[in-house]
């Protein structure tokens, strides 16, 4: 009796789905979120700043006034007049106690090899933004998959998988990344041609040292996402639509990807977008201590490191890359906040 009831009621939800679809056309949850996001001014500013940075990173060769490797030996440590006016400590050559070469060809001045600082900051955005996108991507791919499988399959599998996460958690992340970078840089360097390690090293040196940063960040950042995804799956697994999908005999992968994933993605996206500033600062930190990108590839972290050595004599060399880092981290934070408000109506002020 009950079985026939189920069979009979089967078409009814189908018609409901159709009617729901017509509603979706006007206002899907994602559209709704976008609408809310647009109304959030801080998030919008963040979005604009990030977009501008992405554009700058992509079109760096077109907009940068110089090449990031070109060294001008007649303009070592030079600064334009407006910077000299801005920092009274920097006295121009010729004045009493003056020591700074004045050169207005370089808008933000040059470094100790006569390389244009503005150009290097623009190119540095490439590294930071790549990390901002690759970091979450790796984290999403690995972490979400891992967490979903653990959460959906449950039982002993869940237990083992989550203990692995616990073990990974036990390592201090920063230390682990530093160890890995040292390992990559020192031992893979000496690997024999033809091996995987050798290829990796080759790709790494072609990309100016970015691949190892991605691997390092990727390997240490997926655990948070995995835990979050598992928790979300556990709460979603009990929902009626999963039961429904199960009852029509959908196989596990299709349930996970078509029914579970879309419903847990919101919180994960929010968590990841809030984690982006952490990835950026991670890269900057690695480059700052000399384990990040290879010279002469500029990254904001390595620019700040180089600039900090000259911070008393030429403050512009440290301050401008630091400002770039500051603004982008803020922008990602604002955007992440905005996304959280937009994707989670319960926390929104409107409701």
């Amino acid at each position: 009796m009950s079985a026939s009831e189920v069979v009979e009621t089967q078409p009814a939800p189908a018609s409901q789905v159709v009617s729901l679809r017509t509603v979706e056309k006007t206002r899907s949850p994602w559209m709704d979120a976008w609408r809310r996001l647009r109304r959030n001014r801080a998030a919008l500013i963040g979005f604009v700043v990030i977009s501008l940075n992405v554009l700058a990173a992509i079109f760096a060769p077109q907009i940068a006034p110089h090449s990031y490797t070109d060294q001008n030996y007649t303009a070592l440590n030079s600064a334009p007049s407006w910077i000299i006016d801005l920092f009274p400590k920097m006295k121009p050559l010729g004045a009493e106690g003056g020591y700074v070469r004045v050169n207005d060809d370089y808008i933000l001045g040059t470094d100790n090899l006569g390389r244009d600082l503005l150009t290097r900051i623009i190119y540095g955005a490439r590294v930071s933004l790549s990390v901002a996108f690759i970091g979450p991507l790796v984290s999403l791919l690995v972490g979400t998959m891992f967490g979903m499988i653990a959460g959906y399959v449950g039982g002993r599998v869940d237990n083992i998988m989550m203990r692995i996460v616990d073990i990974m958690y036990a390592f201090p992340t920063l230390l682990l990344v530093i160890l890995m970078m040292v390992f990559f840089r020192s031992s893979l360097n000496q690997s024999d041609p033809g091996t995987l390690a050798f290829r990796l090293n080759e790709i790494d040196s072609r990309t100016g040292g970015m691949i190892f940063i991605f691997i390092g960040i990727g390997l240490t950042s997926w655990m948070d996402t995995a835990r979050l995804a598992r928790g979300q799956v556990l709460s979603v697994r009990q929902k009626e639509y999963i039961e429904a999908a199960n009852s029509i005999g959908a196989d596990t992968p299709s349930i996970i990807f078509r029914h579970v994933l879309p419903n847990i993605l919101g919180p994960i996206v929010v968590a990841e977008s809030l984690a982006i500033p952490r990835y950026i600062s991670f890269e900057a930190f690695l480059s700052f201590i000399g384990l990040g990108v290879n010279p002469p590839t500029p990254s904001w972290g390595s620019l700040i490191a180089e600039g900090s050595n000259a911070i008393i004599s030429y403050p512009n060399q440290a301050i401008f890359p630091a400002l770039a880092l500051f603004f982008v981290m803020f922008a990602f934070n604002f955007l992440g906040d905005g996304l959280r408000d937009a994707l989670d109506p319960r926390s929104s002020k409107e409701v």
Partner: protein
Amino acid sequence: MRKGFVVLLVGLLVISSVLMTTAGSTKAQEPKVLYTALLPGDVKIDPSLASDANSITMLNVLYVGLTGLHDETVAIEPGVATEWTVSDDGLVYTFTLAQGVSWVHYDAEAGEVVQVMDEAGAPLTLKAQDFVYGITRTLNPNTGSEYSSVLAPWVVNGQESLAGEAVELGVKALDDYTLEITSPQPAGFLPMLYGLWMARPQLQSVVEEFGDTWTEAANYVSYGPYALKSWEHDVEVTLIKNPFWAETMYIPQAKIDEINFIYLEEPAQLTAYEAGELDWIATVPLADLDRMRAERSDQLVIGPGQCTYYYGFNVLKDGVSNVHLRRALSMAVDRDVIVQILNAGQVPAGFFTLPALAAAPHQEDYPDLAIWSDAAKAQEEFQAYLADEGITADQVPQITLQHNTSQAHATLAQAIQQMWKDTLGLEVQITTQDFAVHQETMRFDAPQIWRLGWCFDYPDTHNFLYDVFRFVGPDSNNHTNWENPEFQALLDEAKTMTDNAARAELYAQAEHILVYEDAVMIPIYYYTSIDLTQPYVVRTYAQTGNERFEKWDLSE
């Protein structure tokens, strides 16, 4: 109200008078302390093991050699040997030692320097036997002395001993205060060489009792004008005046009571100096040099240096095993630009030896002695390399340049990296290591290209060419893994001669092989010394690279 005011006034008076008296009295007792800094890289104050400039400077005030170099004239002068004689064939040196030089040790509990006593309770003095022990220990292969290869050729059976054979060394104590050293060959610089740190005395009882830890402050013994007060590894070292040092004409009693060395990176050193926390620093960051010129021109002294800055090749490694590539890399380095970047009067180097040394060849006399920057020729050599190996430009193996961590090295490495890219189209990867790790890496598995500097220990060309490149292996200073019989024969021949002009002729040929024909190293520039000293420090400026702190003072 009124009463309160009076009380306050009286109180202030009492407090201020107390403050004034204590300030006055402590000033009289307060020791004179010179605060200075070292670049990170812990020192090794074992005379057998020291090899870097910081350790050697300290050893020169802790352990005085048989002979020494005057700090300003670089002329030889007596150390703990009051006089010495040479046999007619120039082989046997007999040194007469000063008597009554006490071995001392800093007693942390008593807070003062005390004499080391023998079993009978009498002060232990420096004896010729201590020299015999010190030299024997340096030449023992188990000690692992990097400078043993410098000393070994000049002591009978030295090289055999270093090779692990049980032999009788040519060092003898004729009596407690007479030391005889026999060399297999004569040479003009031998009196200076026998005064170097690896030929200094060591106290056998202490070294054998404590083993590797005998250099710790708790165990350390010395006899020079300063003693070791404390040594916190990689943090700071403090030397304290040795009141038992018997003043000589050449080495006075120290006037400064304590010298505190703290390990700081270059920028931090300057910051501390500008804040008045350091009295003297021997390095100024590249980025701040122009500002120091403008702001502290009275404290900044730039003088001639004692070292050559160079890149070496490990000739066993991919790519740089080919001489054409090495030559191309060397010629592509624009040395004029390098000294322009460095901005402190450094001199471009086309060959290895410092031109100021005895028997050094000069460019004017030997026009094709050096390798010079030449972009067109560099490209020719690069093409020759490609043809040699039968590869195209994009099949060149990955080349790695390694330097020890420092902003100045990093700046130069990036400048040279760019020169190689512009001239040869070759992308070289740069890696960095801390100095101690860098040194170990070079001893056992040097990367393709590595950075080093070499400073003279005694002012003779032999100390550059022979002492660095004659031998090969982890216990030598030669990390190139390169050997050339012709080069070695030239050096061996020059070693037997005493006429400086004739030696210069041979050294010129050897240099040509080293930097041009085989191009195993890239000479880049000759250093200058850069000092910032507070106006109240009364000091000498050592031309030897090793400051003689016992001659310094602090004025009020």
